[in-house]
């Protein structure tokens, strides 16, 4: 697992995952247990004996953040209550049109981004395509001023860098930095929520802040939930899109086919979620009971690392798993997780990435990578290129 977190392997962790998959359970040096086989990862994602609540961890961290944790760090029934409230303003049955209603704006915004690229030459498609779209969309949806982008982006970087702090060298410092950034950003969104109380609009934060249904979040929960949605709403999609551009450039036949068949983007993005998932593993689950897997016992209280990127390439589940093949038909990936914590923003991530990749394929002629592999962002958990310099002959 040290090899997974080692930045030198960031560009291609899959051979390491293959080795981790050889053992059903891997006991790591920090005492946690890593699993990478598809059946086990799916099994534990649905297992009621697995907790996501940091209260069960040996060192849960800051009281403010832990006691007000958002649904991703909660177990039922609190998880169900918080996720239900957030869903009320994001998706069916109460708000069925929210995500699909974003589509026209997403398409025009993506095309605007491509319009702004030089007519030929070189561009960084992380900075100029993969990043700006999801940030703009999540800001609009939540009701966060886009002009604050730089400020919350800096906090987000700190938080993401510390996501797997427990498995890294210098864990204590990383955890401290992560928590400081979280608390600062928590203060920022809390202020924002207050502003939405005095000047409400139709955004999700406004609707959550002014919820009168009798089943609303506390202010603390509202703060951490907003924080979660803001970070998860763009950090992951940036990587999915950038991984997609990279994968298309490495598979020119796929780029050709996408140009000719725009609808093919749908299975393409699903295969991408299997092949290069933007969330590579879930580092912070805890066993609430002894869990027996064919004679190996994960003891009660142990931290569990679920390697979804390894599961997605398990040859016992997917034929020829290291081949990028959107036509494989059977793409039941765990790129969005599974079970009660299945990605909240999945439908939004899908349409954003579909729009970006389609625009990239159709509007840039003769694109090629300036450097392969590209430089990567530091996190092994939310994995993706830091920059993606692409040269092309002509922008349409």
């Amino acid at each position, binding site marked *: 697992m040290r090899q997974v977190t080692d930045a030198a392997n960031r560009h291609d962790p899959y051979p390491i995952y293959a080795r981790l998959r050889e053992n059903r359970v891997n006991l790591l040096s920090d005492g946690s247990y890593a699993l990478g086989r598809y059946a086990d990862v799916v099994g534990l994602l649905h297992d009621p004996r697995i907790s996501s609540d940091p209260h069960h961890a040996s060192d849960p961290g800051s009281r403010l953040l832990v006691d007000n944790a958002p649904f991703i760090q909660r177990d039922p029934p609190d998880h169900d209550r918080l996720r239900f409230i957030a869903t009320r303003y994001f998706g069916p049955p109460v708000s069925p049109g929210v995500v699909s209603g974003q589509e026209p704006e997403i398409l025009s915004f993506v095309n605007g981004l491509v319009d702004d690229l030089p007519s030929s030459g070189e561009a960084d498609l992380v900075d100029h395509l993969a990043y700006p779209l999801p940030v703009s969309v999540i800001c609009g949806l939540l009701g966060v001023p886009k002009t604050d982008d730089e400020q919350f982006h800096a906090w987000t970087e700190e938080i993401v860098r510390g996501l797997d702090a427990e498995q890294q060298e210098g864990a204590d410092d990383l955890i401290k930095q992560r928590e400081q950034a979280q608390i600062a950003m928590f203060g920022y969104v809390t202020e924002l929520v207050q502003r939405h109380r005095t000047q409400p609009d139709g955004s999700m934060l406004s609707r959550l802040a002014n919820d009168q249904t009798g089943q609303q979040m506390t202010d603390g929960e509202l703060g951490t939930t907003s924080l979660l949605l803001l970070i998860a709403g763009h950090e992951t999609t940036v990587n999915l899109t950038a991984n997609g551009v990279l994968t298309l450039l490495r598979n020119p036949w796929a780029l050709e086919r996408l140009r000719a068949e725009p609808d093919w983007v749908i299975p393409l993005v699903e295969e991408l979620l299997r092949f290069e998932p933007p969330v590579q593993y879930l580092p912070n689950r805890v066993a609430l009971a002894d869990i027996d897997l064919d004679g190996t016992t994960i003891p009660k209280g142990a931290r569990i690392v679920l390697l979804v990127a390894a599961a997605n390439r398990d040859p016992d589940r997917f034929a020829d798993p290291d081949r990028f093949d959107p036509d494989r038909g059977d793409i039941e990936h765990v790129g969005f997780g599974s*079970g009660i914590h299945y990605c909240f923003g999945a439908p939004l991530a899908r349409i954003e990435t579909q729009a970006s990749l389609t625009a990239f394929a159709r509007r840039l002629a003769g694109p090629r990578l300036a450097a392969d592999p590209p430089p990567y962002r530091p996190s092994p958990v939310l994995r993706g290129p830091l920059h993606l310099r692409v040269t092309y002959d002509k922008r349409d």
Partner: protein
Amino acid sequence: MPGKSRAQRIVIVGASLAGLWGAATLRKEGFDGVLTIIGDENDPPYDRPPLTKQVLTGWVAPDHTVLPHLEPLGDTRWLLGTPAAHLDRRAGEVVLADGTRVPYDLVLIATGVRNRPWPVDEQATLGGVCGVRTRGDAARLIGHLEAGVSRVVVIGAGFTGSEVASACRHRGIDVTVVEQAQAPLTGALGGVVGDVAANLHTTNGVDLRCGVTVDALEGSGGTFRAAALSDGTTVDADVAVVALGGMRNTEWLADSGLASGPLGVAADAGCRAVAVNGLVTDDVFVAGDVARFAHPLFDYQFLTLEHWENAVVGAQVAARNMICAPEDRRPHACVPTFWSTQFGVNIKSVGVPSLADQIIVTQGSTGAGSFAAAYGDCDGRIVGAVTFDHGRWIDHYRGLIERAAALPEPYDADLPDKPEPARFPPHPAATYHGPTVVVTGHSPTRMDAVRLPDGRSARDY
């Protein structure tokens, strides 16, 4: 290809979910011969679960339920609007009601189930008396609901009846539900969960009458007006929805020599039909609601499962087994699954709860109407599970059932740690009116089993 079937003509009887998936799988697995699909309805295959849910509430139009073709079906002949009337296995032909003979090398039976009609003809034909099985039925019922009705009476509180009641309440229409058992859904999920379902009905404003049957549907001027109940009361209503379950469409097979009847068409775990004499056939396969197959996971009991997923998976297994080499055949062994949506609650189930003796609530709370519960047989093995608004946990229970695990203890604190009786009604063994089969021949090598012609009892022989 060595070992692979050399069949050139495959006929699928039944143009619904199982039929379509059978066709798609045959093409996907490389069958490039003549494919014919026969259906009694005029419509191309459509999806039935929405008919009592999104369609009845008015969200989706009845004709917006057409099933997509997930595989190109190539050159496929569709014979829609005329039912199959006979299966002539000697000639290798399906005979339609209009006399058309369709020859086959292999045939897949997927004729499904129809609504069990109200038993008294004059009452069944009153205006306002309907069932919900086809999209025509759904359109007719919506017509009534939208014309303005004072009350709907639903006869039977299984899944269909409960979903119809839910849709009526969604539309603000008064509804009375009459159920013979002590609670809704009891046949499928037992009395413990039935009590939770009863609570759902009553808190949503349904006038629920349990432990009661309908004696007669009364009308005037050819129109339904009221239902007379066995407790002596009368319910005034404009619409009666008959939701008494289904009848398997096997009559057309009466002279086919297959082991078929009201219980379905018997098949082995590989979806091959069984003949009257108990031998497995090689050219007749069965899938969907009409298939009664030996399930390896449940002591090889013959099960019929009227579930969406059973139709899809059964058809996939059957179609693949039709054309693959015999040694590559696979059993239809998947754990049964179904779902329902009623009164805003998502209900899911895996396994076969009705085989259970005991039940234990493992997550959530039945009082709050949001929970998971596991069903165990008399040996303490888990055989099924149900969730109310806990659907994302269902795969955990599916895994336990697949592994034949012990009935789990509760996962949440504060739940009773001992199972209780699941309270299923006694199995209605006495209702079987299948064909009479007799053994003939006098030496072991000459013995056979044959079915008596309809109307003749063994004594006449």
